[in-house]
């Protein structure tokens, strides 16, 4: 008999509506799982009382018969979302003690739909990273381990806490954010589903900014159906975010059964890396076969500027971040360094930021500062934004040719051991985003769906890239792969 916390969102929704169990029981089951999973270091703040209050309210709503899909569903929230009265630190020391007086639009939408927030989830500081190792709370741990090996692995990042919490059945769904792959890469590393919506689909208001032109919130869930349900709940126009689009939000769940028959799905040849592991290669071609066997037309397509996505991303994202993070100065909130006699405001800024930011954040802020500085703005930043235009144009061209979605691997590898990547060269870690950043640069929707296990018994994911505002068709493709792959593996519960 499965425990309640092991249910998917759609299963729990049905169970709640048919009164098999209550939202309070469901919340308690998750809270107990959270308590038992301290070793994974996924929750940086647990809000049990708030969760139970919300669950009680949800039970009332459900019994009145007026309950949206997310009503009574326990969720975890990445620490990047501002949550009123609840510690919000972006996993950084510099926001020590910060409790926002306001609630992000996306979390407010979830709460309004009746979801119960269990707490805040670990992440890479300010969402900068691909491993959730760079956190003031310490590294998050992936529930998955290699066969016959008890070394701890990274859940990916930066939404590693969110992905791992879903994989470990601590919550039914979680909110993450994706700037260059921060939802899809951890989803692939943990055998979960992760969606990065079209830029402008979800409001950024109240989400601590990393790179404004790339950041999007999105769900991490146990199934494609759950992703559709949760995505619908958090989507929609927000007048408080100038980049949020006034686009109708369809019922995403209704797209799932549409199938892929007759759809033209592209395989971008530039995504085939020189040193791609054969297992990834195999997974990718298996994915193509699954879609073809369900009637899709698989076509070879070219995105000629793919190679330049990663370097363009690592100019644009740090540049925006260097400016977005200037507000962390020890004056209005968060950490403030101690000064020695005779020191002034400049020392206050410099020491607060030196002590408050972690190494990776400081590195990116400095890179971003450099590429915007006098004499380099044209050569780096402007050039990167031009390359970005070309990357977007590549996609527009193939979409105009009738391609409805693209299939690619989600990551170049499965989950790596904590501490094993990027120690000597930060660029090594950046390469994790090689398949995902193009999607952010072009503002497109992308989804990572688990499609198999590698030799070591670790999950691997495939990515579907959709047309702008066409998350529905993208989800339908992912649903077809999920169905064909029949991925049902769960990690052993070694942490209990």
């Amino acid at each position: 008999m499965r425990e309640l916390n092991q249910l998917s969102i759609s299963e729990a929704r049905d169970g709640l509506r048919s009164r098999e169990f209550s939202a309070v029981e469901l919340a308690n089951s998750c809270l107990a799982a959270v308590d038992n999973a301290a070793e994974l270091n996924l929750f940086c703040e647990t809000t049990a009382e708030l969760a139970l209050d919300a669950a009680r309210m949800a039970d009332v709503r459900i019994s009145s018969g007026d309950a949206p899909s997310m009503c009574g569903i326990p969720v975890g929230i990445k620490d990047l979302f501002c949550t009123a009265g609840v510690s919000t630190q972006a996993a950084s020391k510099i926001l020590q003690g910060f409790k926002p007086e306001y609630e992000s639009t996306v979390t407010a939408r979830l709460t309004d739909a009746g979801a119960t927030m269990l707490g805040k989830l670990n992440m890479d500081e300010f969402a900068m990273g691909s491993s959730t190792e760079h956190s003031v709370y310490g590294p998050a741990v992936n529930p998955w381990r290699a066969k016959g090996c008890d070394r701890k692995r990274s859940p990916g990042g930066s939404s590693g806490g969110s992905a791992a919490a879903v994989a470990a059945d601590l919550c039914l769904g979680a909110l993450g954010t994706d700037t260059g792959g921060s939802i899809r890469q951890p989803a692939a590393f943990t055998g979960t589903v992760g969606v990065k919506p079209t830029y402008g689909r979800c409001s950024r208001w109240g989400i601590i900014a990393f790179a404004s032109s790339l950041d999007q919130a999105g769900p991490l869930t146990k199934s494609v159906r759950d992703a559709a349900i949760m995505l619908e709940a958090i989507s929609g126009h927000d007048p408080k975010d100038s980049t949020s689009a006034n686009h109708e939000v369809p019922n995403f769940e209704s797209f799932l059964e549409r199938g892929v028959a007759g759809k033209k799905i592209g395989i971008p040849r530039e995504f085939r890396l020189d040193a791609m592991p054969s297992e990834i290669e195999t997974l990718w071609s298996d994915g193509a076969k699954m879609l073809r066997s369900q009637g899709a037309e698989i076509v070879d397509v070219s995105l000629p500027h793919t190679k330049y996505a990663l370097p363009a991303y690592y100019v644009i994202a740090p540049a925006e971040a260097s400016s977005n993070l200037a507000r962390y100065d020890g004056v209005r909130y968060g950490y403030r360094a101690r000064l020695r006699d005779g020191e002034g405001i400049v020392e206050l800024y410099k020491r607060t930021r030196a002590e408050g930011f972690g190494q990776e954040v400081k590195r990116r802020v400095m890179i971003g500062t450099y590429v915007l500085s006098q004499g380099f703005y044209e050569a780096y930043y402007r050039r990167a934004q031009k390359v970005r235009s070309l990357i977007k144009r590549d996609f527009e061209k193939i979409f105009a040719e009738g391609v409805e979605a693209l299939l690619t691997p989600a990551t170049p590898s499965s989950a790596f051991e904590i501490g094993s990547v990027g120690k000597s060269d930060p660029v090594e870690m950046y390469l994790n985003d090689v398949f995902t950043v193009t999607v952010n640069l072009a503002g497109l929707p992308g989804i990572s769906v688990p499609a198999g296990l590698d030799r070591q018994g670790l999950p691997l994911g495939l990515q579907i890239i959709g047309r702008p505002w066409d998350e529905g068709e993208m989800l339908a493709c992912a649903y077809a792969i999920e169905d064909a792959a029949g991925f049902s593996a769960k990690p052993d519960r070694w942490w209990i």
Partner: protein
Amino acid sequence: MHRMNFREPEPKTIAGARGDWEMVIGLEVHAQVSSKSKLFSGSSTEFGAEPNSNVDFVDAAMPGMLPVINEFCVEQAVRTGLGLKAKINLRSEFDRKNYFYPDLPQGYQISQLYHPIVGEGEVTVETRQGFARRVRIEHLHLEQDAGKSLHDLDPNCSYVDLNRTGVALMEIVSYPDIRSPEEAAAYILKLRQILRFLGTCDGNMQNGNLRADVNVSVRPKGSSNLGIRCEIKNMNSTKFIQQAIDYEARRQVAILEDGGKVVQETRLYDASSGTTRSMRSKEEAHDYRYFPCPDLLPLEISKEWVDSVAAGIPELPDEKKARFIREFGVTPYDADVLTAEADNAAYFEDVAAGRDGKTAANWVINELFGRLNKDGKSVSESPVSASQLGAILDLLAAKDISGKIAKEVFEIVWNEGGDPAMIVEERGLKQVTDERAIRSAVEMVLEANPDQVERARANPKVAGWFVGQVMKSTGGKANPAQVNAIVRELLEL
């Protein structure tokens, strides 16, 4: 459109050891948009509120907060651009200007460097009648104001108030076309006048709603090269601006004549010593790392919308002045006075409508403005309305009252209100024009003063004394022209 012919004023020169120097001045004027709420947030712009009370989470740069632009501010920028006869850019962009300062919570100011909303324009600045400098506007852009740091509340700390943070400013940047401190002051006052006519900025310099950064350089007289300039920051008084420019230009001349080099820097004017000094906090070389603000999209406006805004632009000072001269026959000087403020001009037009323009100008300037000045009132607070003043002028024109009585009636209306015609009627102030009545009054005076009559016949100038006596005896009501004529007749002059 009427275009006045002007001559260019002479540049102000500073005599040096080896020749004359001339000053080259450009201004960056910051005009606060007359909006209720801020440029990118919904908090109030009201002046003088409790510290940090007109501040919301966006202004305080709380994590995750985002800007949304105030459409009223966009419209005011466009209106101002149209008022400056400038090119309106249908597509503009917002950039972030990055620097650290306690009163700049975001760590950047949202401004418009690369693609401002308004392009080149011009302002005609009259320095005296017949002389004007055409000052070209380089561009106008929208930006956020910073907050305020108070340094004198505590010996060891500075206090930060963010009430002003995020208030919309229009930065109006001129070319270095100005050649004297007086021109600089006249330029600011002209801009202020235009802004107030448009209603886009209240022009209150005391509250800092209109202030300027002044760029000053010097060069040998007649040279067409630009020297190295210094920027004097944050000036909000035309008097101090003139003093600062004068001091700064002389300082630079002294350096150059000494064989030295002017260092391009930001300076602060100290009014108590009348000098400028280098700003310590701005000493280090700045690198603002401007880049397009990723929280905002390009601002696109349509030609049709700009046209509709243009349709709502009122007549501006230059055109109004020209029209007043043309239509009402007033002098250029009087036209300047009458068009200083839109309210004043409107009052004058109401008074002058259907009446003699020169008389109306005379009365509005000398009687009304004089009286308002004395009481420290503005035209909108005037106890005498334009129609009341018009009625007085009508009585005067109809010779129902004399000029002297008209002033008395004006004073009565000022203090007590009322309809001037009724006042004249009820208080018996109506001028006596009855030939017989005046003749008998004159005769009585002549009879009573036989010696004076003799003297007047010898010296006709003495006749004026009789006119005065008759006016006195009639309580000022007799028509002075008739009195004069009858006195001369009876004296056989």
